[in-house]
Protein backbone atom coordinates (compact mmCIF):
# COMPACT_ATOMS: atom_id res chain seq x y z
CA UNK A 1 0.00 0.00 0.00
CA UNK A 2 1.50 3.32 -1.07
CA UNK A 3 0.47 5.39 1.89
CA UNK A 4 2.02 8.81 2.30
CA UNK A 5 4.54 8.69 5.11
CA UNK A 6 3.74 11.04 7.90
CA UNK A 7 6.33 13.75 8.47
CA UNK A 8 6.74 15.54 11.75
CA UNK A 9 9.11 18.40 12.40
CA UNK A 10 10.50 18.69 15.90
CA UNK A 11 12.08 21.95 16.99
CA UNK A 12 14.28 20.91 19.89
CA UNK A 13 16.26 23.29 22.05
CA UNK A 14 19.97 22.74 22.01
CA UNK A 15 20.43 22.53 25.76
CA UNK A 16 17.72 20.14 26.89
CA UNK A 17 15.43 18.37 24.46
CA UNK A 18 18.06 17.95 21.76
CA UNK A 19 20.34 16.43 24.39
CA UNK A 20 17.54 14.09 25.37
CA UNK A 21 17.13 12.99 21.74
CA UNK A 22 20.86 12.38 21.59
CA UNK A 23 20.81 10.36 24.78
CA UNK A 24 17.81 8.38 23.57
CA UNK A 25 19.80 7.61 20.44
CA UNK A 26 22.99 6.47 22.14
CA UNK A 27 20.91 4.44 24.58
CA UNK A 28 19.38 2.64 21.59
CA UNK A 29 15.85 3.59 22.56
CA UNK A 30 13.15 3.09 19.94
CA UNK A 31 11.07 5.99 18.76
CA UNK A 32 9.14 6.61 15.54
CA UNK A 33 11.13 7.50 12.46
CA UNK A 34 8.52 10.04 11.31
CA UNK A 35 10.24 12.77 13.25
CA UNK A 36 12.71 15.19 11.66
CA UNK A 37 14.66 17.18 14.19
CA UNK A 38 15.65 20.82 13.81
CA UNK A 39 17.96 22.06 16.51
CA UNK A 40 17.25 25.56 17.81
CA UNK A 41 19.15 27.49 20.47
CA UNK A 42 16.07 27.82 22.69
CA UNK A 43 12.36 27.07 22.53
CA UNK A 44 11.96 30.84 22.77
CA UNK A 45 13.63 31.07 19.37
CA UNK A 46 10.78 29.26 17.68
CA UNK A 47 8.55 31.71 15.89
CA UNK A 48 5.04 31.03 14.64
CA UNK A 49 6.17 31.71 11.10
CA UNK A 50 8.64 28.83 11.31
CA UNK A 51 5.80 26.52 12.23
CA UNK A 52 3.68 27.89 9.41
CA UNK A 53 6.61 27.43 7.04
CA UNK A 54 6.85 23.78 8.07
CA UNK A 55 3.17 23.20 7.34
CA UNK A 56 3.49 25.06 4.08
CA UNK A 57 6.23 22.69 3.00
CA UNK A 58 3.96 19.77 3.75
CA UNK A 59 4.67 18.43 7.22
CA UNK A 60 1.79 16.75 8.98
CA UNK A 61 2.61 17.90 12.48
CA UNK A 62 4.95 20.05 14.50
CA UNK A 63 6.47 19.43 17.89
CA UNK A 64 8.35 22.02 19.91
CA UNK A 65 10.31 21.02 22.96
CA UNK A 66 12.50 22.91 25.39
CA UNK A 67 13.91 22.88 28.89
CA UNK A 68 11.67 22.61 31.92
CA UNK A 69 10.51 25.95 33.35
CA UNK A 70 13.25 27.32 35.55
CA UNK A 71 15.93 25.34 33.73
CA UNK A 72 16.30 27.35 30.55
CA UNK A 73 19.92 27.86 29.57
CA UNK A 74 19.02 31.49 28.97
CA UNK A 75 17.09 31.57 32.24
CA UNK A 76 13.71 32.62 30.87
CA UNK A 77 13.43 31.87 27.16
CA UNK A 78 10.98 29.04 27.68
CA UNK A 79 8.74 31.21 29.86
CA UNK A 80 8.29 33.62 26.97
CA UNK A 81 7.88 30.69 24.59
CA UNK A 82 5.08 29.29 26.71
CA UNK A 83 3.02 32.47 26.34
CA UNK A 84 3.70 32.69 22.62
CA UNK A 85 2.67 29.07 22.12
CA UNK A 86 -0.65 29.40 23.94
CA UNK A 87 -1.81 32.30 21.80
CA UNK A 88 -0.43 30.77 18.63
CA UNK A 89 -1.89 27.30 19.10
CA UNK A 90 -5.24 28.77 20.09
CA UNK A 91 -5.39 30.98 17.02
CA UNK A 92 -4.36 28.17 14.68
CA UNK A 93 -7.02 25.93 16.09
CA UNK A 94 -9.52 28.80 15.94
CA UNK A 95 -8.77 28.97 12.23
CA UNK A 96 -9.61 25.31 11.89
CA UNK A 97 -6.28 23.48 12.13
CA UNK A 98 -6.54 20.26 14.16
CA UNK A 99 -5.26 20.83 17.67
CA UNK A 100 -3.47 17.49 17.55
CA UNK A 101 -1.07 18.68 14.87
CA UNK A 102 0.94 20.89 17.20
CA UNK A 103 2.62 19.64 20.35
CA UNK A 104 4.76 21.13 23.06
CA UNK A 105 6.84 19.53 25.73
CA UNK A 106 9.51 20.20 28.32
CA UNK A 107 12.20 17.52 28.30
CA UNK A 108 15.56 17.84 30.04
CA UNK A 109 18.75 16.42 28.57
CA UNK A 110 18.67 13.56 31.08
CA UNK A 111 15.13 12.49 30.17
CA UNK A 112 15.81 10.17 27.25
CA UNK A 113 12.95 7.91 28.31
CA UNK A 114 10.54 10.82 28.36
CA UNK A 115 11.81 11.89 24.96
CA UNK A 116 11.11 8.49 23.44
CA UNK A 117 7.71 8.32 25.12
CA UNK A 118 6.60 11.80 23.99
CA UNK A 119 7.91 11.08 20.49
CA UNK A 120 5.69 8.01 20.38
CA UNK A 121 2.68 9.94 21.68
CA UNK A 122 3.16 12.80 19.25
CA UNK A 123 3.68 10.47 16.30
CA UNK A 124 0.73 8.33 17.30
CA UNK A 125 -1.62 11.30 17.44
CA UNK A 126 -0.46 12.77 14.16
CA UNK A 127 -0.47 9.44 12.34
CA UNK A 128 -4.02 8.84 13.51
CA UNK A 129 -5.03 12.26 12.14
CA UNK A 130 -3.52 11.26 8.81
CA UNK A 131 -1.82 13.49 6.24
CA UNK A 132 -2.37 17.21 6.69
CA UNK A 133 -4.14 19.12 3.97
CA UNK A 134 -4.39 22.48 5.67
CA UNK A 135 -1.91 25.32 5.32
CA UNK A 136 0.00 23.24 2.79
CA UNK A 137 1.15 25.03 -0.29
CA UNK A 138 0.15 22.98 -3.28
CA UNK A 139 2.23 23.22 -6.40
CA UNK A 140 0.86 25.28 -9.27
Amino acid sequence: MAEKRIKIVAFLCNWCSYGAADLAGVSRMQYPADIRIIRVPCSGRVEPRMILAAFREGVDGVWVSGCHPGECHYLEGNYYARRKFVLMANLLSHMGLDKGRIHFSWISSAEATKFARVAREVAHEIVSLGPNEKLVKKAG
Partner: protein
Amino acid sequence: MNNYTKNIRKISSNLLEDGRVDLVLGFKRGTLPMASVPGIARTPEEAQGFVWDTNCRLNLANYITDQKEKIGIIAKGCDSRNIVNHIMENKIPRDQVYIIGVPCTGMVDKNRIRALLDDEIKEFKEEGEVILIRGAGQERVLDKEAYLRDNCKICTHRNPVIHDDLVGALVKEQKIEDPFRDVAAIEAMEGEERWNHFEGLLSNCIRCYACRNACPLCYCPACFVDESKPQWIGKGQDPTDIRTFHFLRAYHCAGRCTDCGACEEACPMDIQVRDFTRKLVKDSFEIYGWEPGLTLDRRPPLETFKPEDSDKFIK
Protein backbone atom coordinates in the same frame (compact mmCIF):
# COMPACT_ATOMS: atom_id res chain seq x y z
CA MET B 1 -20.61 72.67 12.23
CA ASN B 2 -20.68 70.50 15.32
CA ASN B 3 -18.93 71.42 18.55
CA TYR B 4 -16.26 68.80 18.20
CA THR B 5 -15.22 70.13 14.81
CA LYS B 6 -15.24 73.68 16.16
CA ASN B 7 -13.09 72.75 19.13
CA ILE B 8 -10.72 70.61 17.09
CA ARG B 9 -10.09 73.55 14.79
CA LYS B 10 -9.71 75.97 17.68
CA ILE B 11 -7.36 73.85 19.75
CA SER B 12 -5.31 72.92 16.70
CA SER B 13 -4.89 76.48 15.50
CA ASN B 14 -3.94 77.66 18.98
CA LEU B 15 -1.30 74.97 19.25
CA LEU B 16 0.12 75.83 15.85
CA GLU B 17 0.01 79.54 16.47
CA ASP B 18 1.85 79.24 19.77
CA GLY B 19 4.41 76.97 18.14
CA ARG B 20 3.72 74.25 20.69
CA VAL B 21 3.52 71.66 17.93
CA ASP B 22 4.96 71.51 14.42
CA LEU B 23 1.89 69.91 12.95
CA VAL B 24 -1.50 68.55 13.88
CA LEU B 25 -2.87 65.26 12.60
CA GLY B 26 -6.60 65.15 12.12
CA PHE B 27 -9.36 64.20 9.74
CA LYS B 28 -10.35 66.13 6.67
CA ARG B 29 -13.38 65.73 4.49
CA GLY B 30 -13.07 62.96 1.90
CA THR B 31 -14.19 63.26 -1.69
CA LEU B 32 -17.34 61.17 -1.19
CA PRO B 33 -20.10 61.34 1.39
CA MET B 34 -19.30 59.09 4.37
CA ALA B 35 -15.57 59.36 3.79
CA SER B 36 -12.92 61.13 5.78
CA VAL B 37 -9.22 61.23 5.11
CA PRO B 38 -6.30 61.72 7.48
CA GLY B 39 -4.89 65.20 7.08
CA ILE B 40 -2.03 67.33 8.32
CA ALA B 41 -2.18 70.97 9.35
CA ARG B 42 1.00 72.98 9.69
CA THR B 43 -0.65 76.40 9.91
CA PRO B 44 -3.73 77.67 11.76
CA GLU B 45 -5.37 78.19 8.37
CA GLU B 46 -4.86 74.58 7.41
CA ALA B 47 -6.39 73.53 10.71
CA GLN B 48 -9.67 75.06 9.52
CA GLY B 49 -9.97 72.09 7.17
CA PHE B 50 -10.34 69.61 10.02
CA VAL B 51 -13.69 67.92 10.55
CA TRP B 52 -15.16 65.46 12.97
CA ASP B 53 -18.11 63.21 12.40
CA THR B 54 -19.04 59.60 12.71
CA ASN B 55 -17.00 58.62 9.68
CA CYS B 56 -13.55 59.10 11.24
CA ARG B 57 -12.92 55.40 11.28
CA LEU B 58 -9.20 55.34 10.60
CA ASN B 59 -6.61 55.43 13.37
CA LEU B 60 -4.28 58.43 13.33
CA ALA B 61 -1.75 56.79 15.65
CA ASN B 62 -0.64 55.06 12.46
CA TYR B 63 1.13 58.23 11.34
CA ILE B 64 3.24 59.09 14.37
CA THR B 65 5.67 56.17 14.18
CA ASP B 66 9.29 57.31 14.55
CA GLN B 67 8.40 60.90 13.71
CA LYS B 68 10.85 63.53 14.81
CA GLU B 69 8.57 66.55 14.91
CA LYS B 70 6.32 67.61 17.74
CA ILE B 71 2.87 66.37 16.81
CA GLY B 72 -0.61 67.32 17.86
CA ILE B 73 -2.96 64.43 17.26
CA ILE B 74 -6.72 64.01 17.36
CA ALA B 75 -7.51 60.83 19.23
CA LYS B 76 -10.72 59.00 20.00
CA GLY B 77 -10.66 56.25 22.63
CA CYS B 78 -9.10 53.50 20.52
CA ASP B 79 -6.59 55.86 18.87
CA SER B 80 -5.43 56.99 22.30
CA ARG B 81 -4.82 53.38 23.26
CA ASN B 82 -2.69 52.92 20.18
CA ILE B 83 -0.76 56.04 21.17
CA VAL B 84 -0.12 54.39 24.54
CA ASN B 85 1.12 51.32 22.64
CA HIS B 86 3.42 53.50 20.60
CA ILE B 87 4.88 55.17 23.68
CA MET B 88 5.31 51.80 25.34
CA GLU B 89 7.04 50.36 22.27
CA ASN B 90 9.37 53.36 22.00
CA LYS B 91 7.90 54.52 18.73
CA ILE B 92 7.45 58.07 20.01
CA PRO B 93 8.21 59.74 23.37
CA ARG B 94 5.24 60.89 25.41
CA ASP B 95 6.31 64.54 25.39
CA GLN B 96 6.52 64.61 21.63
CA VAL B 97 2.78 64.18 21.20
CA TYR B 98 0.09 66.58 22.25
CA ILE B 99 -3.04 64.48 22.43
CA ILE B 100 -6.30 66.22 21.62
CA GLY B 101 -8.77 63.72 22.99
CA VAL B 102 -12.19 63.11 21.47
CA PRO B 103 -14.79 61.44 23.69
CA CYS B 104 -16.42 59.17 21.14
CA THR B 105 -19.88 57.71 20.80
CA GLY B 106 -18.90 55.37 18.01
CA MET B 107 -18.33 55.38 14.29
CA VAL B 108 -20.92 54.08 11.86
CA ASP B 109 -20.65 51.05 9.65
CA LYS B 110 -20.48 52.50 6.16
CA ASN B 111 -21.42 49.26 4.44
CA ARG B 112 -24.62 48.74 6.34
CA ILE B 113 -25.67 52.31 5.67
CA ARG B 114 -24.78 52.13 1.99
CA ALA B 115 -26.90 49.03 1.64
CA LEU B 116 -29.99 50.98 2.71
CA LEU B 117 -30.33 52.91 -0.52
CA ASP B 118 -30.74 51.42 -3.97
CA ASP B 119 -28.36 53.95 -5.38
CA GLU B 120 -25.25 55.80 -4.27
CA ILE B 121 -25.45 58.01 -1.20
CA LYS B 122 -25.19 61.62 -2.33
CA GLU B 123 -25.52 63.29 1.02
CA PHE B 124 -24.77 62.33 4.60
CA LYS B 125 -25.74 64.60 7.47
CA GLU B 126 -25.34 64.13 11.16
CA GLU B 127 -27.27 65.93 13.85
CA GLY B 128 -26.21 64.68 17.25
CA GLU B 129 -27.16 61.02 17.36
CA VAL B 130 -29.35 61.18 14.28
CA ILE B 131 -28.19 60.64 10.73
CA LEU B 132 -29.77 61.67 7.48
CA ILE B 133 -28.84 60.04 4.20
CA ARG B 134 -29.99 61.06 0.78
CA GLY B 135 -29.63 59.40 -2.62
CA ALA B 136 -31.37 59.65 -5.95
CA GLY B 137 -34.98 60.21 -4.90
CA GLN B 138 -34.54 58.43 -1.58
CA GLU B 139 -34.04 59.67 1.92
CA ARG B 140 -33.66 57.95 5.26
CA VAL B 141 -33.34 59.15 8.82
CA LEU B 142 -31.32 56.82 11.01
CA ASP B 143 -30.59 56.36 14.63
CA LYS B 144 -26.80 56.41 14.74
CA GLU B 145 -26.55 53.91 17.55
CA ALA B 146 -28.26 51.24 15.50
CA TYR B 147 -25.64 51.55 12.77
CA LEU B 148 -22.42 51.49 14.75
CA ARG B 149 -19.50 49.37 13.60
CA ASP B 150 -19.22 46.00 15.32
CA ASN B 151 -16.17 47.09 17.30
CA CYS B 152 -17.80 50.34 18.40
CA LYS B 153 -20.89 48.48 19.60
CA ILE B 154 -18.81 46.62 22.16
CA CYS B 155 -16.28 49.34 22.94
CA THR B 156 -15.73 50.04 26.62
CA HIS B 157 -13.08 52.73 26.21
CA ARG B 158 -14.82 55.48 24.32
CA ASN B 159 -13.03 58.19 26.25
CA PRO B 160 -9.37 58.77 25.46
CA VAL B 161 -7.20 57.00 28.03
CA ILE B 162 -4.55 59.71 27.83
CA HIS B 163 -4.97 63.23 26.58
CA ASP B 164 -3.57 66.73 26.97
CA ASP B 165 -6.79 68.43 26.00
CA LEU B 166 -10.36 67.40 25.28
CA VAL B 167 -12.75 68.60 22.61
CA GLY B 168 -15.83 67.92 24.73
CA ALA B 169 -17.11 66.47 27.98
CA LEU B 170 -16.35 62.84 28.69
CA VAL B 171 -19.05 60.42 27.55
CA LYS B 172 -20.59 57.58 29.47
CA GLU B 173 -18.77 54.29 28.97
CA GLN B 174 -20.81 51.30 27.84
CA LYS B 175 -21.22 48.24 30.01
CA ILE B 176 -21.09 45.15 27.84
CA GLU B 177 -22.48 41.91 29.20
CA ASP B 178 -20.68 39.52 26.96
CA PRO B 179 -18.01 41.33 24.94
CA PHE B 180 -16.68 38.21 23.21
CA ARG B 181 -19.91 36.79 21.89
CA ASP B 182 -18.64 37.07 18.31
CA VAL B 183 -15.51 35.04 19.08
CA ALA B 184 -17.47 32.48 21.08
CA ALA B 185 -19.78 31.94 18.12
CA ILE B 186 -16.81 30.94 15.96
CA GLU B 187 -15.31 28.86 18.77
CA ALA B 188 -18.56 26.95 19.03
CA MET B 189 -18.22 25.70 15.46
CA GLU B 190 -16.66 22.35 14.57
CA GLY B 191 -13.06 22.43 13.29
CA GLU B 192 -14.06 21.96 9.67
CA GLU B 193 -16.72 24.64 9.93
CA ARG B 194 -14.21 27.07 11.38
CA TRP B 195 -11.81 26.32 8.56
CA ASN B 196 -14.56 27.00 6.05
CA HIS B 197 -15.63 30.15 7.86
CA PHE B 198 -12.17 31.66 7.39
CA GLU B 199 -11.92 30.21 3.89
CA GLY B 200 -15.07 32.10 2.96
CA LEU B 201 -13.87 35.22 4.72
CA LEU B 202 -10.64 35.30 2.76
CA SER B 203 -11.95 34.20 -0.61
CA ASN B 204 -11.97 37.79 -1.88
CA CYS B 205 -8.68 38.94 -0.39
CA ILE B 206 -6.51 40.52 -3.06
CA ARG B 207 -3.40 40.75 -0.85
CA CYS B 208 -3.22 44.53 -1.17
CA TYR B 209 -2.03 44.80 2.44
CA ALA B 210 -4.27 47.79 3.12
CA CYS B 211 -5.29 46.13 6.39
CA ARG B 212 -1.66 45.97 7.43
CA ASN B 213 -0.87 49.48 6.27
CA ALA B 214 -3.77 51.04 8.14
CA CYS B 215 -2.83 49.40 11.42
CA PRO B 216 -0.70 51.45 13.80
CA LEU B 217 0.85 48.24 15.14
CA CYS B 218 2.36 47.27 11.79
CA TYR B 219 5.45 49.42 11.63
CA CYS B 220 8.33 46.97 11.08
CA PRO B 221 10.81 48.38 8.53
CA ALA B 222 10.77 45.00 6.78
CA CYS B 223 7.48 43.13 7.03
CA PHE B 224 7.63 39.33 6.92
CA VAL B 225 5.57 39.42 3.73
CA ASP B 226 8.41 41.21 1.97
CA GLU B 227 11.27 39.08 3.22
CA SER B 228 12.83 36.85 0.60
CA LYS B 229 15.55 34.90 2.42
CA PRO B 230 13.83 32.95 3.74
CA GLN B 231 10.60 33.71 1.99
CA TRP B 232 7.87 33.12 4.54
CA ILE B 233 4.98 33.45 2.13
CA GLY B 234 4.66 33.49 -1.62
CA LYS B 235 3.64 36.58 -3.50
CA GLY B 236 0.58 35.42 -5.37
CA GLN B 237 -3.02 34.56 -4.72
CA ASP B 238 -2.37 31.08 -3.44
CA PRO B 239 -4.93 30.35 -0.70
CA THR B 240 -2.27 29.01 1.66
CA ASP B 241 -0.24 32.18 1.26
CA ILE B 242 -3.29 34.32 1.91
CA ARG B 243 -4.16 32.29 4.96
CA THR B 244 -0.59 32.42 6.25
CA PHE B 245 -0.49 36.18 5.75
CA HIS B 246 -3.64 36.66 7.77
CA PHE B 247 -2.55 34.35 10.54
CA LEU B 248 0.78 36.09 10.94
CA ARG B 249 -0.58 39.60 10.56
CA ALA B 250 -3.03 38.90 13.34
CA TYR B 251 -0.49 37.11 15.48
CA HIS B 252 1.89 40.06 15.30
CA CYS B 253 -0.90 42.09 16.90
CA ALA B 254 -1.29 39.66 19.79
CA GLY B 255 -1.57 41.51 23.07
CA ARG B 256 -1.42 44.81 21.18
CA CYS B 257 -4.61 45.05 19.13
CA THR B 258 -6.99 47.70 20.45
CA ASP B 259 -9.82 46.57 18.17
CA CYS B 260 -9.92 50.02 16.58
CA GLY B 261 -11.19 48.57 13.32
CA ALA B 262 -8.88 50.58 11.06
CA CYS B 263 -7.88 47.35 9.29
CA GLU B 264 -11.46 46.61 8.30
CA GLU B 265 -12.08 50.21 7.36
CA ALA B 266 -9.15 50.16 4.96
CA CYS B 267 -9.98 46.87 3.27
CA PRO B 268 -11.28 47.51 -0.25
CA MET B 269 -12.93 44.10 -0.30
CA ASP B 270 -14.81 44.57 2.98
CA ILE B 271 -13.22 41.55 4.59
CA GLN B 272 -13.84 41.18 8.30
CA VAL B 273 -10.22 40.75 9.28
CA ARG B 274 -11.06 41.42 12.92
CA ASP B 275 -12.28 37.82 13.07
CA PHE B 276 -8.60 36.92 13.38
CA THR B 277 -7.48 39.56 15.85
CA ARG B 278 -10.58 39.25 18.02
CA LYS B 279 -9.54 35.77 19.10
CA LEU B 280 -6.24 37.18 20.32
CA VAL B 281 -7.96 40.08 22.05
CA LYS B 282 -10.13 37.56 23.86
CA ASP B 283 -7.29 35.23 24.81
CA SER B 284 -5.02 38.05 25.98
CA PHE B 285 -7.83 39.23 28.18
CA GLU B 286 -9.03 35.89 29.48
CA ILE B 287 -5.64 34.26 29.97
CA TYR B 288 -3.46 37.22 30.92
CA GLY B 289 -6.01 39.77 32.09
CA TRP B 290 -4.68 42.21 29.56
CA GLU B 291 -6.36 44.97 27.61
CA PRO B 292 -3.87 46.75 25.36
CA GLY B 293 -3.11 50.43 25.54
CA LEU B 294 -4.69 51.28 28.85
CA THR B 295 -1.62 51.91 30.94
CA LEU B 296 2.07 52.64 30.68
CA ASP B 297 2.75 50.91 33.99
CA ARG B 298 2.43 47.28 32.94
CA ARG B 299 4.25 45.46 30.18
CA PRO B 300 2.21 43.62 27.50
CA PRO B 301 1.65 39.87 27.91
CA LEU B 302 4.13 38.59 25.35
CA GLU B 303 6.90 40.74 26.72
CA THR B 304 6.74 39.29 30.17
CA PHE B 305 5.82 36.06 31.96
CA LYS B 306 4.92 34.54 35.26
CA PRO B 307 6.65 31.36 36.42
CA GLU B 308 3.21 30.03 37.33
CA ASP B 309 1.71 30.51 33.84
CA SER B 310 -0.31 27.51 32.77
CA ASP B 311 1.57 24.42 31.57
CA LYS B 312 -1.59 22.45 30.95
CA PHE B 313 -1.13 22.13 27.21
CA ILE B 314 2.51 21.09 27.50
CA LYS B 315 3.58 17.47 27.71
